[in-house]
């Protein structure tokens, strides 16, 4: 049935199918011209962060800017705005990011999906952010945690260190990432257009995605709200909006 029998069958069929390929041809000899661009345009670090913010907002993520010192206050503000009373964080997220008085759960293997489902928000860092596509990549490092923590709670706050974690393009992002680590690439909150192509935000993943861009030169004061539609209450968002996959 299965096992080595079919393995040999399939491989033998493939080899017979390729009878026209010269025996001494090596894979690298089949030409692949990589003359596409590594980046689409030259940008200063500031322009790169600006583009990231624009593209994140395009896909209905809420973008905020703050300095390292103002980060805890910014996070506290977002949790309060959301009305979350509990928050889960991976082990590498500093205690200081989570405000006093909040039920703070550290993720561990013992935490079941159902327990995660009862938690309001998750706060993580990220591995790299891609400006051209508005993408955050999490690679399960200490400050990003297991893939499920950023999936089951309905509200995700993702902290990006600017400029060092921001790259221009997909090729640059892949260069920085290790395929051996499980990854989640996130471009805006989850969405569907399956019903008459009407875009609806949030089917299964977090319905609200807050991205905090932390820069040394950002004002030490309050976070700024970049995105339109930040006032959308979740669940009702996206009605009548243009469709997207």
């Amino acid at each position, binding site marked *: *049935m*299965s096992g080595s029998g079919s*393995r040999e*069958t*399939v*491989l033998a*069929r*493939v*080899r*017979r*199918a*390729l009878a026209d*390929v010269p025996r001494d041809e090596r*894979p690298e000899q089949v030409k*692949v011209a990589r*003359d*596409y*661009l590594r980046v*689409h345009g030259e940008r200063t670090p500031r322009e790169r962060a600006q583009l990231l913010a624009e*593209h994140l907002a395009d896909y209905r993520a809420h973008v905020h800017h703050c300095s390292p010192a103002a980060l805890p206050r910014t996070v506290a503000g977002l949790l309060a705005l959301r009305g979350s009373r509990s928050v889960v964080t991976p082990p590498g997220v500093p205690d200081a990011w989570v405000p006093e008085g909040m039920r703070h759960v550290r993720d561990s293997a013992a935490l079941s*999906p*159902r327990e995660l489902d009862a938690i309001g928000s998750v706060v993580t860092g990220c591995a790299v952010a*891609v400006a*051209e*596509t508005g993408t955050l990549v999490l690679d*399960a490092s200490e400050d990003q945690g*297991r*893939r499920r923590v950023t999936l*089951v709670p309905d509200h995700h706050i993702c902290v990006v260190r600017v400029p060092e974690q921001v790259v221009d393009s*997909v090729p640059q992002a*892949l260069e920085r990432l290790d*395929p*051996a*680590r*499980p*990854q*989640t*690439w996130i*471009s805006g*909150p*989850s*969405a*569907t*257009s*399956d*019903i*008459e*192509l*009407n875009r609806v935000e*949030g*089917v*299964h*993943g977090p319905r609200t995605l807050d991205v905090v861009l932390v820069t040394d030169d950002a004002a030490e004061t309050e976070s700024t709200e970049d995105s339109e539609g930040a006032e959308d209450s979740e*669940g009702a*968002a996206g*009605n009548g909006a*243009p*469709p*997207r*996959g």
Partner: protein
Amino acid sequence: MSVTYLGMPPFPQAAEVSVRDERLRRNLRHATHTIRDKRAGAVAELVDWAALRAAGAQIKDRTLRHLDHYLEQLEGAVTAAGGTVHWAADAREANEIVTRLVRETGEREVVKVKSMATQEIGLNEALERAGIAAYETDLAELIVQLGDDHPSHILVPAIHRNRGEIREIFRERMGRWGRPAPDGLTDAPAELAEAARLHLREKFLTAKVGISGANFMVAESGTLVVVESEGNGRMCLTLPETLISVVGIEKVVPTWQDLEVFLQLLPRSSTAERMNPYTSTWTGTTEEDGPRTFHLVLLDNGRSDTLADRVGRQTLRCIRCSACLNVCPVYERAGGHAYGSPYPGPIGAILTPQLDSMDTGLDTSLPYASSLCGACFEVCPVAIDIPEVLVHLRERVVQGGTATVRGQRTTVKPAKGHAAERAAMRAATWAFDHPRALRAGERLASRARRLVPRRLPGPGRAWTDTRDVPAVPPESFRDWWRRTRGPQGGPGSGGRGARPGDSDSDSDRNSGSGDSSANGNDKGDGDGPAGMVR
């Protein structure tokens, strides 16, 4: 076992019904035009699109020409990373493997990520026969499954359903499978999506086995990639204890770096986004993160046969983006169901018959489900020359020849019902080689033109089932040419811009150049049209 659904009629019969469905056509028109316009915008953002497209095609060609090498490399890498690799020569074997693996877990329920490969092999039905319930978790697939229906588009499988129908399906059927739809459910898309979220969350939180496909498999690292929008994929890939991925052998790419091409081509071509909301990558198993057990089932099911056909081979480059569906005038009017398999549209018209070795009447009709306009080739992000493959497959239908069927070189006979067409083509070839006979025939046809019926009688009837008999002109082109240019006139002799209506005033321009008159001889005449017959 055929890739096409059981009992599906040939394409023209199915399409005859669907083109009369006005609601379906309205939905399809709206969907295909919306996505195609947005796609054009997303593609235009990248000035190097042509170079990316060429690289995508070349990477896939490199992989396909050395597929055995990359499959073995992939197997080694997945195994080293803690996964188990299984090989399935056909659908039946793949279903047996998956059924056995699920049984070994002791579970009776599985959650599924939308996957073309598992639709192709009829996995849900096979699991059901084994007493295992498979829950589709993509919103559209859920609508299709609850409605006891077939998908009609690769990207938006329930595009043939409107919101009112979806509400009815949810209200009537959700309760049978789990959490029922909320009371007072309206047909607002956001409410319908919320109902699906609540219904499926119960499944995700308790599921012990997940089943997926994959968009890409990286040979060098053993990494699998799933590209999605809703997050149901992430749920299935990370919450269950056991993950089983069923993936076609052509989905392998050599290196991690190669993803830089496909992660740019796929989202923009498919959903017209810079990037899709969620992409998951995993390599074997990871301690305390995601499933503890990972099985990869590598599926052949006609792919190696397709690989053996040097023209058809390019079909295996396909990354299932569905851009070709959205530009196809035939798909827009006939809809996805007429193609009779999980693969609709132009790609389905070449993929299904090849995977199936032209097994059914539907398979032999699919290469004709096209006007050969070429729009599909133009948008294809991996440059599959779909018209070329369509014509090639038509040849195989009409003339037969050698093909590989389940790994064996086989001489295939022409498909049934094409004898008359073959005889007509042979007669045409002979006539084009014998100009005198052709001329006599043309004159006879012109004189009798009022007698030509709209449908041909006898053996020609099948041909006119799907075509109108062309109008016969009062004068053949060759007679007009002779009359207006004289017997020595030929192409390039000065009348290039002439149209039949201008013939009188143009005739005297001929005299100026007689240098290429050799083209006017009978041999030269015969070459052109005979070439066009193909």
